[in-house]
């Protein structure tokens, strides 16, 4: 029997998802034995033309990491969708928009101005900014332009499965690959990770009281978490209650609270809202002043509750005043 064909592709990502695959180390050789890798831009030389020549459905699965921000990326992922039986969104950026998705809380104009005009070290009296097309001594050069929004993969194409995490732990990568090879696939649209919240498998869960109340949040800047106590019980915001488990409690093991890279549990539409309501119902504020202080103690709710998921949240992006060219 011919080996199943597998494609890897990346859009806007940091390269960490690719590193996870490198971290498979010896196991990568087993993967290579079992499947035929037909596209992997990081490692193998196949071009758009080659992919266009595939028959629809010829390739069993495409793993795509990174958020989508360029028309070129859109073209690639649409083509892969057409040619591959399954598409897996790999990692937080493809799944939820990820940290680069926080750019949806800003505009392109601000990004350009901060980087090329306002940075403390920039010396740019003529106000030069990078251009899509420019001419240097008669030589024409081009740069890609960016969409105003960062998008998760399923905002651009239909996605069959999601592998969560920033980056996904390599054990879950191996699990997913095996599930595909053995044809033991969960229902379409599944996130390949446990359904329960991180709290349920968290080693600190025992110290999380059922009647947990929070009067005010502590800042990690000025306070140090107890090495054993539940972060919420200790007064630090932890996304555990609203986040899907399965990461191996990696940040918790580093004595730091969860920031939600695995995304929401299946019953939750919007991780940030879920966490906010969990927190609000735990707040022990009986006067208006106390509730104001409680709210103030949660600095930057947007960047904390939606650290990895702004593009797919109900907020999606910050409203932009009309006339702002983005």
């Amino acid at each position, binding site marked *: 029997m011919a080996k199943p064909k597998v494609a890897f592709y990346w859009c806007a990502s940091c390269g960490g998802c690719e590193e996870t695959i490198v971290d498979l180390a*010896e196991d990568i050789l087993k993967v290579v034995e079992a499947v035929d890798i037909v596209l992997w831009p990081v490692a193998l030389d196949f071009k758009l033309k080659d992919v266009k020549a595939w028959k629809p459905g010829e390739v069993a699965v495409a793993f795509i990491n990174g958020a989508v921000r360029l028309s070129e990326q859109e073209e690639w992922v649409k083509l892969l969708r057409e040619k591959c039986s399954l598409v897996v969104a790999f990692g937080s950026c493809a799944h939820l928009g990820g940290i680069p998705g926080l750019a949806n809380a800003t505009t392109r104009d601000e990004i350009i101005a901060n980087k090329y005009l306002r940075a403390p070290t920039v010396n740019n009296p003529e106000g030069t900014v990078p251009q899509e097309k420019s001419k240097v001594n008669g030589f024409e050069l081009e740069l890609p332009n960016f969409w105003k929004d960062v998008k998760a993969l399923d905002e651009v194409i239909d996605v069959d499965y999601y592998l969560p995490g920033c980056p996904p732990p390599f054990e879950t990568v191996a699990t997913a690959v095996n599930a595909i090879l053995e044809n033991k696939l969960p229902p379409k649209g599944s996130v390949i990770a446990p359904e329960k919240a991180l709290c349920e498998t968290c080693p600190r869960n025992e110290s999380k009281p059922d009647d947990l109340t929070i009067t005010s949040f502590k800042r990690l800047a000025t306070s140090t978490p107890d090495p054993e106590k539940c972060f919420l019980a200790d007064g630090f915001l932890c996304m555990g209650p609203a986040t899907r488990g399965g990461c191996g409690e990696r940040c918790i093991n580093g004595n730091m609270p969860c920031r939600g890279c695995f995304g929401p549990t299946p019953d939750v539409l919007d991780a940030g809202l879920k966490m906010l309501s969990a927190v609000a119902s735990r707040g022990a504020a009986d006067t208006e002043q106390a509730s104001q202080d409680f709210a103030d103690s949660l600095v930057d709710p947007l960047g904390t509750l939606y650290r990895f998921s702004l593009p797919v949240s109900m907020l999606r992006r910050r409203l932009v005043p009309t006339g702002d060219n983005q």
Partner: protein
Amino acid sequence: MSKRITINPITRLEGHGKIEIFLDDAGDVERAFLQIPELRGFETFCLGRPAEEMARITPRICGVCPTAHHIASTKCLDDLWHVDPPPTAKKLRELVYSAFMCEDHFLHFYFLGGPDFVVGPTAPATERNILGVIAKVGLDIAGQVIAMRRKCRELIETMAGKVIHPVFGLPGGVSKGITEEQRLEFLKTAETAVEFAQFSLNLFNDVVLKNDDYVKLILDDAYAHRTNYMGLVDENNKVNFYDGHVRVVGPDGDEFARFAPRDYTDHFAEHVEPWSYVTFPYLKSKGWKGFVDGPDSGVVRAAPLARCNVADGMATPLAQAAYEKMYETLGGKPAHATLAFHWARLVEALYAAERMKELLEDPEITGTDIRTEPTRTPDEGIGIVEAPRGTLVHHYFTDDNGVLTKVNLIVATNFNAAPIAMSVEKAAKGMIKGGKVNDGLLNMVEMAFRAYDPCHACATHSLPGQMPLVARVYDSTGKTIKELRR
């Protein structure tokens, strides 16, 4: 007839570079550009975030060197909150950092830059990769590389939570210490790392230095640039990755500046070009003179050879011996041969391994005083570390509540952007003549920038460690007259 050659590593927004080579009527190189189509806006979308979260956000700038961003950010937070971490905390951070430098340098040598030398720069493309390296050095050694990297990465994961995107750094210290049991376990890792680094240097000696053609290639003028160099040094002017002062030497090797991280804005400015998203830092007092080298140019190189060039030596004995041997062969200091970056990288890997061992033999490493909690009002902070690929600067401004109001980030590839562009142009000029272009020549042009291990090419940090290339030659009407790919 004017020709245009495009070398475009497969599409990748965040990590790729594009080389455009323009030929004149005679078919010689007139001008070459290295473009970086990368802009993510961390400086902007981090505004409004609590500064302490930066150590967890900025690693996403690069998934290959997340630890460098994590540590630079953490040090920036110390400065921002005006707090000095306890000695144990500093040592724990440096331990994680040394393990990272060590494994990253091995990764580069064996998987990325190494194939050019170990297999040979003009070997067929299909062999010039990690599989080719394995064929040459044997499966056993390849297994050792993998095992070595895994152990270093386990150390980082145990100490810092996650190896890709660590979490343990806090202003004034770290969130977690190590036990005696862990210390003993990690010490074994460090000892193996020292041995493996020595082995790698011997391999370099046998395969590269004993081959006259390779030595000639290293010393070839097509790969040399007489530039300024920069890097962190300790109080004895020895190479340091984690801390110290920035030292800059001129092309003649004389000290040009030596300053505390806090003063970097007095010494550096950034130039903007309309054709690249990357900015080009330069020495303020020399000014931006364009993409040129020489004593008047403000262009500065960073990364392994630059660090060795600015320092008076290495702080550990075995690395110091390797350092001396390297400069003997290269004909003294500073060395301008771009391809010697690979050698310097191995000398540094040995230092990183020895430093890991030193730190793990220090009884303070298992101390429990791992954090000084900040009490002062934050305002402005600067943190500088040496990333594998060169000097890395994080600079934050906040309000009284520690919420970010301004962020400046200069990454290693920024510092090297102008030199890489120059190296590529120079190599192209030396290797492409009379319109004659072939795959081997293109690889040599690519080698010019692979020597820097640029982060925008972290695309290549993977099996089999080779950047796919396509080169097109156009005539003046835009018609493709030749296409090369590999």
